[in-house]
């Protein structure tokens, strides 16, 4: 960096005084702008947190207070019973079990299939590879709506509608977004490591499982988290494929609850909070991975 040297001043003290004043002015301005920034940040935070607070507050209100006027932010007394009542009014334990089955199967399926495929694209040379990878990216851009009807027909023809399979199977055949994410990560691992392992006599599969995978834990964790949240919150697919109540996921269960007990906002909010808990816990445990994943792909993972 080059800094131009100021011309020699005639009086040393005057310049110093000037400088002091300028500094003080800058400090004042700095303080003012800092205050405004903090004010805006705090105001924004309050606005962003209010819906959550309202959710918690409603979930703890006695029934008669949910529709009292004017509304209160703090319940007169905390009714923890709402959580038990809401959870048992419908078989939410069954819904939880189904959600866990679907979500875990999706996370595992995506981790296995996408990492294998991504390794192929990142490390193995073959004719047609670039073109096929372009196809992966192209399918990322095609809206789900286009494939939704034929996929439904496919599953209905093989008799899998109203089972959990349509919610699980696709994850085991690679999901373009995760393939892309993992491939980008694998490419950043130095090839020297592969070559060294290769010289030591490792097969391609061993390079994948012993060299690449252990070095890719952050990226794999990111995929696991995105897959977990995406499936935990998924309503559209269960809505299309699931009919009988014993196969409902939590999202469908909440939808049913809402349809049946529209006025029991306190119970509804209590169950909603319970269904959000796993997502919240994962978020707080792995926030760093979220941010990394977003930075790696430039996408929010939706």
């Amino acid at each position, binding site marked *: 960096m080059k800094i131009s040297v100021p011309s020699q001043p005639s009086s040393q003290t005057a310049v110093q005084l000037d400088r002091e004043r300028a500094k003080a002015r800058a400090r004042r301005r700095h303080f003012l702008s800092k205050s405004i920034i903090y004010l805006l*940040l705090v105001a924004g935070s309050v606005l962003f947190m209010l*819906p959550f607070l309202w959710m918690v507050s409603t979930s703890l209100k006695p029934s008669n207070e949910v529709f009292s006027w004017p509304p209160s932010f703090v319940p007169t007394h905390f009714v923890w019973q709402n959580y038990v009542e809401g959870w048992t009014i419908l078989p939410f334990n069954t819904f939880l079990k189904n959600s866990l089955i679907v979500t875990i199967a999706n996370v595992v399926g995506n981790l296995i299939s996408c990492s294998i495929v991504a390794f*192929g694209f990142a490390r193995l*040379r073959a004719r047609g590879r670039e073109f096929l990878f372009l196809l992966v990216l192209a399918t990322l851009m095609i809206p789900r709506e286009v494939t939704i009807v*034929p996929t439904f027909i496919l599953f209905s023809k093989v008799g899998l509608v109203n089972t959990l399979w349509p919610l699980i199977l696709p994850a085991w055949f690679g999901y373009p977004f995760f393939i892309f994410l993992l491939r980008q990560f694998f490419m950043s691992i130095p090839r020297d490591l592969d070559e060294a392992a290769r010289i030591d006599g490792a097969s391609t599969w061993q390079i994948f499982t012993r060299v690449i995978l252990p070095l890719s834990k952050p990226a794999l964790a990111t995929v696991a988290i995105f897959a977990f949240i995406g499936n935990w919150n998924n309503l559209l697919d269960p809505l299309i494929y699931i009919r009988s109540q014993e196969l409902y996921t939590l999202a469908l269960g*909440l939808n049913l609850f809402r349809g049946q007990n529209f006025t029991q906002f306190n119970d509804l909010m209590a169950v909603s909070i319970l269904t959000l808990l796993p997502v*919240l816990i994962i978020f707080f445990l792995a926030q760093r991975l979220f*941010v990394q994943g977003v*930075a790696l792909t430039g996408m929010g993972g939706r």
Partner: protein
Amino acid sequence: MLQQGVQDAAVSRGVRKRHTLGKQARREEREFYLFILPWIIGFILFGAGPIIASFVISFTQWTLLTPPIWVGASNYTHMLSDPFFRIALVNTLYYGIGSVLLGVTVSFLLALLLNKDVVGQSLFRTIFYLPSVVTGIAVALLWINIFNPDFGMLNHMLRVIGISNPPGWLVSPTWVMPALIIMSVWGAGGSMVIYLAGLQSIPEHLYEAASLDGAGPWGRFWNVTVPMMSPVIFFNLIVGFISSLQAFVQIYVMTDGGPANASLVYGLYLYRNAFRFFQMGYASALSWILFIVIIGVTAFQFWLGQRWVYYEGDIKGS
């Protein structure tokens, strides 16, 4: 095998090297296709197959109960006279433009605020980011509760600040779309994180150079931050708009298109045709028009982008 080995030994060193390399390359190629096999199967079953099928189905009338009937392009021509199609398209564009413009503005402002070295940066980031992670039906239910005209939090707050007759939000045909757009801004933290990463990668020397050239904070913002961030903003506009055109779950849960079809968006109308009316042909045709709209809007944004997006390292000959 043995015979081949003898032959190999007989040929000259250079040729043999090329020969084994070829063998290795062939093996690598075989391995490549084995590794990507899951995706190939998935691509056929859940990607290319359905895409082609969807295109064919869009020229039929098919309720799944009886065999499909070939109807030519009549599904497409029917859209022209289908009032719900027009309503859904207009509502979707309204929602898309509103939520994306507001979302980009809010998330960019938040990222700018957070980019200053503030104390508690990670706490603030968590607060703004969290709502974008919790999505789905639980959040939709929460916002139904907030937008409740009589007992909801929002109107309560509006009354406190002196607005005696606040809007009905989800039950008002005029206010239902603004309500959904407001709700979507709650998820602005996702793109905020992307902006934040972008802001932090702007080299400091650009700001120093601008300062030496006499640029104030405002000048530095417009002449350094905005041009350097323009590719990220552009990317967010594109991705955000595409996903908002596909909005479904929240609106399905919160309004189901009501009141009076004021929030009937495209995804919802498509879902109804496919899974309520079982009009598989018409639903497929709708999905292709949605695809075309997405491509058209994205192409338009790229065309606009040429005018305002600045790519570093891109030499412009003028």
